[in-house]
């Protein structure tokens, strides 16, 4: 009895240490401890948001460090989603999400379409102004985020587009388009040119080549470029704060900041809203991070 239990323990230990041939068990243990420590530092602040969202309203201010709080409740989630009938307050949560989604989706669509076409030219044609154009696009990434915001703000004000979602779409496209061109150009470069040449010899036009060969082959990259520019705009706060001043146009970062500003009253609601927004984004991110990173390295960090 004792020996079998012991052997299963030994088997578990062997499973744990088996593949680290070069390192001593003690070192392996140390490495695991270090990684566990780092993981706790990485995850705990995020978990704490979940904790706060579960706290009942009368116990928000506490020095408790437990992950699942006492008397955990989903009240905050209900208030955030469907308002508070007792106080006759409506919930803007869905409105914020819709505002964010509509603006960011359109920005991404525009930049992916513009970029898909011009990145193809940058990747396949050699024309005067090509490298100057590419370097220029890279330089725009050096322009501080706030730098073009002021002239854009004044421009939009003259065109009466402040406080419209169209104004925000325009402001977001500034940073989104050049980055997307770079990402896609990097991807097109990896598609062998022989395919197109064969098609061209067989009498296909450039247009057919582009729509029938390049676009289908690069559809994962297009999806990633879309996701990339979507994620860039999705949680943006500073530009939106300048362009939108009306409550009913607020994107969610502006919206939940109104919660975060009031420390006592709405901290739990802020946390609940954050969890509901962050979880889908994180799932999407962790799921797609492999491609996101390869897109990133292809586009901008090409060695």
């Amino acid at each position: 009895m004792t020996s079998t239990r012991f052997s299963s323990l030994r088997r578990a230990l062997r499973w744990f240490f088996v593949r680290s041939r070069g390192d001593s068990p003690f070192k392996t243990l140390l490495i695991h401890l270090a990684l566990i420590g780092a993981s706790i530092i990485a995850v705990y602040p995020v978990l704490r948001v979940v904790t706060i969202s579960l706290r009942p309203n009368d116990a928000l201010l506490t020095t408790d460090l437990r992950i699942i709080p006492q008397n955990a409740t989903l009240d905050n989630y209900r208030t955030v989603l469907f308002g508070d009938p007792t106080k006759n307050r409506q919930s803007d949560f869905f409105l914020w999400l819709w505002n964010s989604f509509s603006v960011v989706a359109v920005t991404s669509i525009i930049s992916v379409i513009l970029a898909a076409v011009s990145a193809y030219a940058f990747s396949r044609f050699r024309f005067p102004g090509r490298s100057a154009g590419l370097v220029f696009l890279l330089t725009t990434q050096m322009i501080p985020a706030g730098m073009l915001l002021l002239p854009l703000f004044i421009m939009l004000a003259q065109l009466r587009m402040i406080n419209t979602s169209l104004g925000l779409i325009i402001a977001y496209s500034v940073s989104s388009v050049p980055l997307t061109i770079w990402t896609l150009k990097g991807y097109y470069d990896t598609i062998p040119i022989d395919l197109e040449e064969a098609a061209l010899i067989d009498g296909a036009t450039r247009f057919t080549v582009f729509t029938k060969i390049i676009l289908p082959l690069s559809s994962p990259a297009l999806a990633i470029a879309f996701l990339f520019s979507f994620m860039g705009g999705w949680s943006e706060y500073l530009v939106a704060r300048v362009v939108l001043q009306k409550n009913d146009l607020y994107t969610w970062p502006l919206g939940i900041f109104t919660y975060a500003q009031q420390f006592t009253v709405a901290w739990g609601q802020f946390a609940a809203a954050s969890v509901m927004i962050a979880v889908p984004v994180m799932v999407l991110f962790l799921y797609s991070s492999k491609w996101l990173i390869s897109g990133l390295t292809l586009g901008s960090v090409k060695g």
Partner: protein
Amino acid sequence: MDETPLIRRFLPYLYWLIGLFLVYFVVNALIAPYASGITLSVQIVIRRLIEIGGFLLAIFAGLAIIEVYFYQIFFRQPRTILTAWIVRILQGVFAGMGLLMVLAFFERTDLFRLQEGLLRSILYFPNTLVDGLRSTLMGIGLTKDSSGWMSGVVLIVIFAGLFFLNHQLTVPRSSKLGMAYLLVLPAFIGVLVLIIYPFLFEIKLAFSNASLGTQATKNAQYGLIYGWNNLVTLFTGTVAKDATFFEVLGRTVLWTVINVVFHVSGGMALALLLHRPMKLQGFYRTLLVFPWAVPTTIVAMALRNEFDSRYGLFNILLSNLNSWLVDVSQGMVSVPVLGEMFAWLAAHIGPVSWRQDPFWAFVSVLITNIWLGIPFMMVIILGGLQSISHEYYEAAEIDGASKFQQFRHITLPLLRPVLTPAVILGVVWTFNKFDVIYLITQGGPQEKTDILVSSMYKAAFSFYRYGFTAMFALVIFVILLAFALVYLRVSGGLKSVTE
């Protein structure tokens, strides 16, 4: 001919129907009872869809017209001398109209201003035409909104007719570069409108006294003297309200250096730990990427409250540590050296006023930004490590190189192609990144945690010093450009990037 049974062919549609019905059911059963508590309504959704759809249609119609115009210039050639005249005149008129519209756009956005008169009415001639069309349409009984849509349709029909005429009068010709330029054109126009034009506007603004008092550009005065004044104020006065330029510049350098050093060393350490045959590697990797996966805005807003002096996470931890140290030091009061040491620690380690003390406020934003940035570097470095062949290490092992020597002479040099661009990008991004600062401390207390970019943002949008901000932005741009040029000189150009 088609052997597939009918039901099979209609199955996809059936699935769609079932799906739609399920969505309808869920919306009705789960959302509808609470609809009174939600401000989002179907009307709002539809209104936004129409607004954005119109915007998209207008953009793509405009781009299509420009594309077709240039296509006919590149790829079509007039048949005879007579048709050449007609075609060229048509194209000239078109180009002239386009130019006038662009100039009118400049005028409308205050890049330059014209007095009422002949010149101005010439500039606005295309706009007047469109307005005339619209009022005609309203005259025959259309509403304000639908006349806008209809005039767009009428214009497109007119353009289509003109292009058809042009097409009939010309024969095809081949063009080598035409295709490339046609493809680049839409993005080029976008960049022109969204980046070049605002940049020019900014330069003009830098030489003005525009502020809230002048109603932005409406009553602003322009001249070299205003630019000079802005420059003098920037270097001798305050950048936003309290802090001076060189103070903030120093803090920006500190901010950038500390962040990048911690990002790279932290990322390197974690990547080296992860890069080995090991159980649970993917699990750790997923957990460690968390800070990157959460939207920055949420992290910053959540940590903003965690830096609270009583109920925030950091001070809870510090005060727990403090009470533990007090306990220990009381237990050890008789032990000679250790007792004194713990007493000293207990007296010095404890809760910190993150909000009021400028030093700790800066530390709080640094902690947040470092925490946020490490995963990116870790992933980049891990990718670099995985591309290094094992054989180098095996050879080094045989030659008796120590682990540190292997790191110093194999890993670091082979990581360079990955690390250098990542570090450069990291420097530029960190230099420009201030959402964490803005959301956690808003630069406070007394702008002691502001960096250049956040000061600029506040000067523009909290203190409305527009002309000054434009000059400020140009100075920041020059600093970054100098950095980029030095980097290019050192690394030998952008050749690897554009090839």
